[in-house]
Structures are given as structure tokens and as C-alpha cells.
């Protein structure tokens, strides 16, 4: 059977292309790129740059969702990590490396806490991580005492608005993290183990997998990713806004993962596709920004686009695709249904 184009191209790419195209129709300069001071600018770059925090969250979230879990606390962890970084770098005397280490370490710790609740205490992931989602922002505010802690450390700021090889740093960090994680998952057996535990935890532990450590590990990783995201977000505005940073971003991250094709029921996952999912969401947001719609339409547009993407990606549409793409040699005797 010759493979048709329909079965090769993933619907995510179609969705992304379609949204970019719509953006272009709404705003003709959308694909323009220009270089100033050795850095590339343009709406496409904005999509990547602004999509980076959610994409990074989505990378960690993918691993968690693959184990049939979910992490609602990533937004709060972003706030905590940002708060730690900002307060430490502001109170001078701390080398940047120490600051980053501390912030990432705190994120890791938050993830370990979540992982312990899920894997050791056996709490349901939504509830386990809801606890930190509620309390985490409080912790972050305790660190900043409710204010936006601003800083001027050029090193830290570089992570938010500097550029490497002409591209904004967040894009480079996102790409690096996505590539490294994908390689680690696929070149080692880690990806297989995570999928296996997500599909059937009992069978996996019978087969000798350390299901518990693996679970703790993925939550820790999600916490780590959230910390990276939190540092970038703080660096971007040169301040830690514990009240607002990452608010409701966990939902965007989950959405990105699902749009990327990873099932909330666990199992097969793809980190690059989750990143694409995050970019689809950001392309949508950027489109709303450049199109000039009044803001009260934002949510409607977003909802409508999500629904369209869901319909396009649904198994029902998949069957229609398959139907359209199948070779027309068979007699067409179709059962009544």
C-alpha cells in the first residue's frame, strides 16, 4: 500500500501552519524577519520566544502525563523559583551560578514533594499537585513579601532577554532542553520505561521496573522544568512577580501536551510534539495580539481554535482521513452503520 500524504503529515503541523497562515492574513507583516544588532526580530521569533516558557513547562508535563499523572503546581513552582532567583541575586554577593542552582534546586525539591505524594502516599496526582498549586504561590509571596522584587543582574537578565547566535536566549534554552530530553528519553530506555509505567504500572513493576522512583523522577523533572521557566519569566521582566507569574499556565501546558498528541491516560508521548503544541497555543495568542481584536474576544477565539484543533485531531476525523486516503480498489460494500 502506498502511504498517502495524509498519513504522514501530523495534524499538529497542519494546525500550526493554518494558524500561522491566519495570522498572516490578519497581519501581512507576520512572516517578516529583520536583523538588528545581530539579533533576529519578527513575529515568528516572538511566537518562539513567548512560547518558550509554556513549551518548557510542557516538556516536563509530557513526562508526567505519560505516567498517567498531571502536575497542576507548575505555575506556582515557577513563582517560587523566580522569587528565589530574584531575592538571591538582589541581595548581592551571590554568584549567578549559585542563584541559578538554588532556584533550580528549589524547583526540583517541589517536584520531589509532588512525586512523593503521588508515588509514596498514593494520592491522586490532581489533588497531590493541587496542594502545592494553592500553597506554592503563598510560599513564593512569603519570599518576596508580596512585592515585585526587581533586579539588575546582567547575567540573569540575559536569560530572559539576551540572545545567542542571534536568537533570544529563551528559544535556545527551550530547544536545548527539548533536544536533550528527547535524546535522553529515546537513546536510553527511559522513554520506554516511562511509557510502560504509564500504561500499566502493575505489569511494569512485575517486569522489574522501579515504578515508584520513576514516578518521583518525572515529577521532579517537571518541577525542574517549571523552575527553568520561572527563571526565564523573572529574567524577562527583570523582577519576580510572585502574584502573577505562571498564573493558569499549568492549563496551557497540559493543553499543549494534549494538542501534541500525548494522551491524558498515559503511555506514548512525544516531547517535540508537545513543544509544537505549545507553539500552536502561542501562535494563537500572538495572532490575537497582532490582529487587533478587542480583548473581550480573546477567550472566545481561543476556545474556538481549540475546538477546531480537537475536531481535526479526533479519531473520527482520523477515520475520515483514512477513508479519504485509502486506495480505492475495494468493492464498496459498507456495513449499515
Amino acid at each position, binding site marked *: 500500500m502506498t502511504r498517502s500524504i495524509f498519513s504522514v503529515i501530523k495534524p499538529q503541523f497542519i494546525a500550526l501552519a493554518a494558524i500561522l497562515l491566519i495570522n498572516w492574513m490578519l497581519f501581512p507583516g507576520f512572516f517578516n524577519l529583520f536583523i538588528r544588532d545581530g539579533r533576529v526580530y519578527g513575529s515568528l521569533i516572538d511566537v518562539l520566544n513567548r512560547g518558550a516558557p509554556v513549551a518548557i513547562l510542557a516538556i516536563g508535563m509530557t513526562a508526567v502525563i505519560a505516567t498517567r499523572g*498531571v502536575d*497542576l503546581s507548575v505555575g506556582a513552582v515557577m513563582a517560587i523559583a523566580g522569587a528565589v532567583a530574584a531575592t538571591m541575586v538582589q541581595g548581592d554577593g551571590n554568584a549567578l551560578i549559585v542563584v541559578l542552582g538554588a532556584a533550580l534546586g528549589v524547583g526540583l525539591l517541589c517536584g520531589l514533594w509532588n512525586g512523593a505524594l503521588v508515588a509514596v*502516599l*498514593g*494520592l*491522586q496526582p*490532581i*489533588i497531590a499537585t*493541587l*496542594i*502545592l*498549586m*494553592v*500553597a*506554592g*504561590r*503563598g*510560599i*513564593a*509571596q*512569603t519570599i518576596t513579601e*508580596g512585592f515585585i522584587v526587581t533586579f539588575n543582574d546582567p547575567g540573569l537578565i540575559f536569560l530572559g532577554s539576551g540572545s545567542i547566535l542571534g536568537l533570544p536566549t529563551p528559544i535556545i534554552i527551550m530547544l536545548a532542553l527539548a533536544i536533550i530530553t528527547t535524546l535522553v528519553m529515546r537513546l536510553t530506555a527511559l522513554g520506554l520505561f516511562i511509557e510502560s509505567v504509564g500504561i500499566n504500572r502493575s505489569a511494569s513493576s512485575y517486569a522489574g521496573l522501579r515504578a515508584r522512583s520513576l514516578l518521583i523522577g518525572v515529577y521532579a523533572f517537571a518541577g525542574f522544568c517549571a523552575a527553568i521557566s520561572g527563571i526565564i519569566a523573572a529574567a524577562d521582566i527583570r523582577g519576580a512577580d510572585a502574584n502573577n507569574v505562571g498564573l493558569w499556565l499549568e*492549563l496551557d501546558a*497540559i*493543553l499543549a501536551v*494534549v494538542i501534541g498528541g500525548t*494522551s*491524558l*491516560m498515559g503511555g506514548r508521548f512525544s516531547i517535540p510534539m508537545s513543544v509544537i503544541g505549545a507553539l500552536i497555543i502561542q501562535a494563537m495568542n500572538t495572532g490575537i495580539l497582532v490582529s487587533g481584536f478587542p480583548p*473581550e*474576544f*480573546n*477567550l*472566545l*477565539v*481561543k*476556545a*474556538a481554535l*481549540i*475546538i477546531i484543533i*480537537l*475536531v481535526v*485531531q*479526533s*479519531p*473520527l*476525523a482520523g477515520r475520515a482521513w483514512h477513508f479519504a486516503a485509502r486506495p480505492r480498489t475495494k468493492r464498496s460494500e459498507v456495513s449499515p452503520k
Partner: protein
Amino acid sequence: MNPRYWPLIATITIFVLAYALAVMQFPALFSTRVLGNLLTDNAFLGVAAVGMTFVILSGGIDLSVGSVIAFSSVLIAVLITQLGIHPLPAFAITLLVTTLFGASMGTMIHYLEVPPFIVTLAGMFLARGLTFLLTQDSISVSHDFYTWVRQFYYVMPGGGRLTFNGGLMLIVFAIGIIVCHRTRFGAYVYALGGNAQSAALLGVPVARTTIGIYAVSSFLAGLSGVVYSLYTSSGYPLAAVGVELDTIAAVVIGGTLLSGGFGFMLGSLVGVFIQGMIQTYIVFDGTLSSWWTKIVIGGLLFGFIVLQRIIIAASKRDWRKKKVEAVRA
């Protein structure tokens, strides 16, 4: 004792214990006034929690609840103040709209095989977006009917008031308990939560039930919006942000498993009370800063859940021993 009642019993025990402890610290908490307030202030949460219980029992989730509450409170306000419709038909229209809204989410979930988390997330955006379309401003409703409803309360001994809203919530819970445990629909809900595939093979009408569940959830979210409207006499587009998470937490604290198939409607009522108690306790304390408030809420949530797990684990061990003895005998 049937082991499936343990989570419920654990929840009730914890609630009673926690209340007793809180009363020891703040004796003023022990009054029918506080109890009446607990009912009134959590009425809209409770009504929504009934719907959420059905959804979670079936193994799903509904994130659109908060937005639908806001949407219906605003729609009611618009209908009454701008179109001059009497509140009762306004309520009816609103409930119809929200029910259809839920039914269409259920349709998508079933026929497009999209996870409920995502469909209802889109529903959450959509409902809030529609609310903004109706109005961006908050709208005050002053109608004789609202004043009239407000007179309906029963003064409990000690001065506490069982208000119309509080009573409505209890009635909704009573109906919810009956539907959940004594009707075919209820059995189908549990069946879907147990194993959707098996349920289909056993002849459970999966499509009808799924659509029904989300329709019920949105209907009750709409009713919750009615309660909210009566409660505040207004429609506010930013109302009830994040209430879905509160309802989910209440349902889960009440002993229902998020994976579906296990739990009791009554548990959700206790879960709502526990949520309300946490808030009331914090207000009575009155010393917590904004951020410590969040940490304490998270901590208390954690405490409740861990305590519940401990009680259930202990009971399981106990149960297994008994069963073994029974087998030996």
C-alpha cells in the same frame, strides 16, 4: 461494615474532629449562626459539587463549572435588567442554555473521543468568553422577586438562618443522592467510571449517559449560577474564577476517586463543608497574611487528605484481617 463506606466515614470523622478542634480554639464557631452561614455561603459551591460528583464518578472531569456559574449569573442579570424579563423565566432560559452547553461538551467527549479535561477546558474559555460578550461590567439586579426570595429563611435555635439558598443546596444534594444511588442513570455513571469498555459491552448506553452526565453538570453549574445570582443579587463576569478546582477538591476530599467509579454523593457535601470550614477558620483566626493564608489552606488540604488516607489504610488492614478470620471460621 461494607468497606466501600470507609472513605465516607473517614471524611465525616475528620470533619467532626476538625470542627471540634476549631471550636476549642474559637468558641464563637460553635453556633447555629456559623452553621447557617456555612450552608448559605457554600450553597453555590455545593450545588456545583453535586454535578461534579456525577462527572468524577464517571471518570471524567469538568473544568467549565466556574465559568458556567459566572455565565449564568451574568445572563440572568442581563435578561432581568436589560430585557426586563421576570426572574423565573430568566432562570429557566439560563438553565436551558447551560444544559445545552453541557450536552454539547458531552457530545464532543463521546463522539470525538477527546479527553474531558480538554473539552471542558475549551468549555471554560468559551463560557467565560461568552460572558464577556454579554457584559464586561458587573450588573446589579434589584427585583421584587429577589427581595421576596430573601424572606424565605428558617431561624434555627440560636439565631442562625437556614436560608433559601442553603435549603436549596440541601434539596439538590438529596435529589443528587437519590439519582446517584437509586436510579439507572446513577448506575450507568458508576458503570462508566468502573470501566467504560466493559460498560459498553454490558449494554450501558454510553453515548446517552456521557452526554447526560455533562448536561447534568452544566445544568447544576447553571443552577449554581442562579444561587450565586440570588446570593449576590448581581451578575459579575469575573465571578467564580477557579471554583472548578474547589468543587473538584470538595468531591475528592469527600472520598470520591478521581479515576472514577468509587464514592458517594453525601461525601461531597462533607467535602464542601470542610472547604467552608477551612475558610471560616482562617477568617476567625484573622492574623494570617495574604500569603500565609494560601500556605495554610494548602497545608490543611494536605492534612485532611493524608488523615483520610491513614484512616482508610488502617481500616483496610482491619478489614482484611476480619475477612481472613471469616474464611478460616
